[in-house]
């Protein structure tokens, strides 16, 4: 930004230096506010479109909607809508049914606790130790332990996962499978094989289809009593069975649809990352006699880890919002087995219990924020530094 001072114009009345310095002061002040002024429209847009609805929906989550003469009213009910989810009538739906964990559940919970203990001990002994850091890590450890405990108890044979755990299953299973498949496809398409350009386009197609289209597609494909695969199901003796009546097969159908749709997203980004890698290191490794697996493990994979970490973060945040597939495939059924948090909020909202719906949406926001921030702070930093 220019700070030059012009001396043209009306003749200065006082000292020759006074006027230019006043103009300079005005210009300096203008310069100092210019940044804010230029950025103001963007800030206003963000406030209007993002922050304002966020605050309003927070207020709505603390209210109850009722239709009265002449319209509707929102009655402030404090934390009632949240209490319903955590300790009240909707607890089984939201958190699930608790039961004694199976041995594998105890094992997994024990492993998580041990890992957290080691993680905390390293931080305490490490050079970056601070009280604030310890408090935040203790909080994170507590939430992660609670999450592991929730998963262990609701996934036990006598328990039943609620929409929180079902959503976490969708997110993390989907992420792992999508990443592995996307990486495999990307590695294949980097090779000089015939038709690779064709396959690049084909692999991208699922991402171009609207999720609701994917849901209807999978509903048709998975129909065992009619549909294009009926002869196959019939040959396998499965034409009189249904995936939609069993909780885990219904969840699997939802996850297969989600994986089919979003693997291309992983694929395209990882392909770009692989193609941008320099070949010198790989050529050097070949000269040194490294085999393909060693090259992939020691050079290629570490090379794409920074990209991978960001990719996983973006996909993870997006995956928490899964709704179309369970809504179309099963309407959340059988029972509530395939219901995600967004579908849970939507189901409540359909009867205009907008306070309850906003409370579920806010719980989802807390979970996504916690998982996202924890991931960004710990795992992504380490992966990027690796």
């Amino acid at each position, binding site marked *: 930004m220019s700070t030059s001072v012009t001396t043209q114009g009306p003749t200065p009345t006082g000292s020759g230096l006074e006027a230019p310095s006043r103009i300079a002061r005005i210009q300096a002040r203008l310069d100092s506010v210019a940044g804010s002024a230029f950025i103001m429209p963007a800030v206003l847009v963000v406030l209007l479109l993002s922050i304002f609805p966020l605050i309003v929906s927070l207020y709505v989550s603390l209210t*109850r909607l*009722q*239709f*009265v*003469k*002449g*319209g*509707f009213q929102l009655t402030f009910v404090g934390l009632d809508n949240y209490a319903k989810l955590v300790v009240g*009538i909707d607890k*089984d*739906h939201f958190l699930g*049914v608790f039961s004694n964990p199976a041995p594998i559940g105890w094992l997994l919970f024990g492993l998580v606790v041990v890992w957290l203990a080691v993680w905390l001990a390293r931080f305490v002994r490490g050079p970056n130790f601070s009280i604030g850091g310890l408090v935040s890590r203790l909080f994170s450890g507590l939430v992660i332990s609670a999450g592991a405990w929730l998963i262990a108890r609701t996934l036990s044979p006598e328990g*039943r996962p609620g929409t929180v755990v079902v959503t976490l299953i969708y997110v993390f299973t989907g992420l792992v499978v999508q990443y592995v498949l996307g990486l495999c496809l990307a590695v294949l398409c980097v090779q000089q094989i015939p038709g690779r350009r064709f396959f690049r386009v084909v692999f991208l197609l699922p991402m171009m289809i*609207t*999720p*609701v289209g994917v*849901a209807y597609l999978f509903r048709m494909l998975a*129909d*065992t*009593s009619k549909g294009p695969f009926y002869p196959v199901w019939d040959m396998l003796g499965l034409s*009189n*069975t*249904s*995936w*939609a*009546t069993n*909780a885990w097969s219904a969840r699997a159908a939802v996850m297969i649809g989600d994986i089919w749709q979003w693997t291309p997203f992983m694929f395209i980004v990882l392909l770009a990352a692989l193609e941008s890698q320099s070949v010198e290191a790989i050529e050097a490794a070949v000269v040194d006699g490294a085999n393909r697996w060693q090259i992939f493990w020691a050079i290629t994979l570490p090379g794409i880890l920074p990209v991978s970490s960001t990719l996983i973060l973006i996909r993870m945040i997006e995956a928490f919002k899964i*709704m*179309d597939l369970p*809504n*179309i495939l*099963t*309407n*959340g*059924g*059988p*029972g*509530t*087995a395939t219901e995600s948090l967004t579908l849970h909020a*939507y*189901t*409540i*909202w*359909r*009867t*205009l*219990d907008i306070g309850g719906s906003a409370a579920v949406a806010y719980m989802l926001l807390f979970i996504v924020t916690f998982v996202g921030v924890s991931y960004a702070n710990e795992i992504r930093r380490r992966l990027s530094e690796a």
Partner: protein
Amino acid sequence: MKQIIAKAFAVATVLTLVLAACATPTPQTVIQTQVVTQVVAGTPVETIIEVTAPPATEAPQQYEGVTINVLTFTGPQIAEPLQRRGPEFTARTGATINVATVPFSDLYQKALTDFATGTNSYDIIVFDPQWMGDYISAGYLEDLTDRVNANKELEWEDIGPFFRDFSATYEGKVYTVPLDGDFHMMYYRTDLIKTPPATWDEYIALAKEFQGKDLNGDGKEDFGTCMAMKRAAQSYWFITSIAAPFIQTQGTGEGAFFDTSNMQPLINNAGFAKALDIYKTLSTLGPPDQLNLDVGDTRGLFTSGRCAMSLDWGDIGPLATDPATSTVIDKVGAAIMPGTKEVLDRATGKLVPCDDKTCPYAIDGVNHAPFAAFGGWSGAINAASKPEVKDAAFDYLAYVSAPAQSNVDVTIGKTGFNPYRLSQFLNREQWVKSGMSAAAASNYLGAIEGSLNSPNMVLDLRIPQNAYYQGTVLDTAVAQFLAGELDAAATMKQIEDGWNQKTDELGRDSQLAAYKASLGVKK
């Protein structure tokens, strides 16, 4: 030179376009139909079919330039006749009809949100009249009493008294025009079953007999009974149909949802437990994916000959006569919903045998309680629409409901409209013309009349926020029960707790008053 020619061509083109734009528009001679689908939150929520007016007659028509936006649920049922009758009404009055549709489970909130936010995109909503309390208390619906009284074409007195009083009237004023009459009925294959089952035990026995047998000669195993059991669809009414004969014995005014003395739900008792047990058994005597089937799916299965019996609204009757899709023409019988010989003693919460005192309306010792589920699709008008639009909207509803149109539409299966006018029951000619045999028409209409005239008919729930009571609490718990997530005791407790909580939130006394008022309707 080339440039000059190109410029001259461009100028000539522009001039032609300008002249064309300035020219007087020629009258339209073709009816155009445009279909637009919007996707919101991943769900196809709206299909707008716009029908442009046919060529104007020389004198300006009554509603020239008026556009009426109609909202109903994703068809083809209900939306189909509304769309088909649009151009006819346009030719008659000049008004343009746009029909927008949303999935059934979104309809309640879509219309209510539109009105509550002042958006007012819709002038007519064709919806479940059970919900009207929420709309009327907020002042969103137009009082149609005077219009109904003044309109001759509608032939109001020809509409069945029950539909006039329940589907159309709220607190003494008329708010909707009935377009449909709804009852749950039982359908059976007359080539397989000679005497329809009178009780739920007999129904189960027959379903077991035919489950797994080939019923349509295609070599595939077919099903004993086909029922819609999908969650968040139109399935949740069926559990009430099964429970009703166990719970309501003393006539319509007794009610089957709440105790009229204290608004306690009639859920946690032996009658409802028995109904849940029957429902679960039926879930195993049908198609393997029955838990994921809505009424559209089960209707297709029944008319393609794959089911020995089915429970449904009146739609299967006319659908079964459609030669394009039905393989069971003249092989379908309809009957009143099965009943029971054991009923609930409300004082003890236990089941007791039927006798003169416990089942005063029993037929051959069996207590039937036919359920007027839903009440029939009805059209209401947005109070915030412009006066001329309201007039046109009412005339459109009156036109669709008038005997000249509706007496034909109720005989067409895909309309989703079932008989609701006295003339539709009395005049069998139209039914025979539609392809139904005289015997089948008598059987079908007789089954509806039997339900309609039953002194123990069960009225659907019509209290503030009943969409939450039934569409969320009841629907979710029953779906969880069918899926094995809850046992019968936990299911009943979940429904009871959910209903009680909502009742307490909204005010027990006011909810009780609304419930008692709804039971006092004339039939």
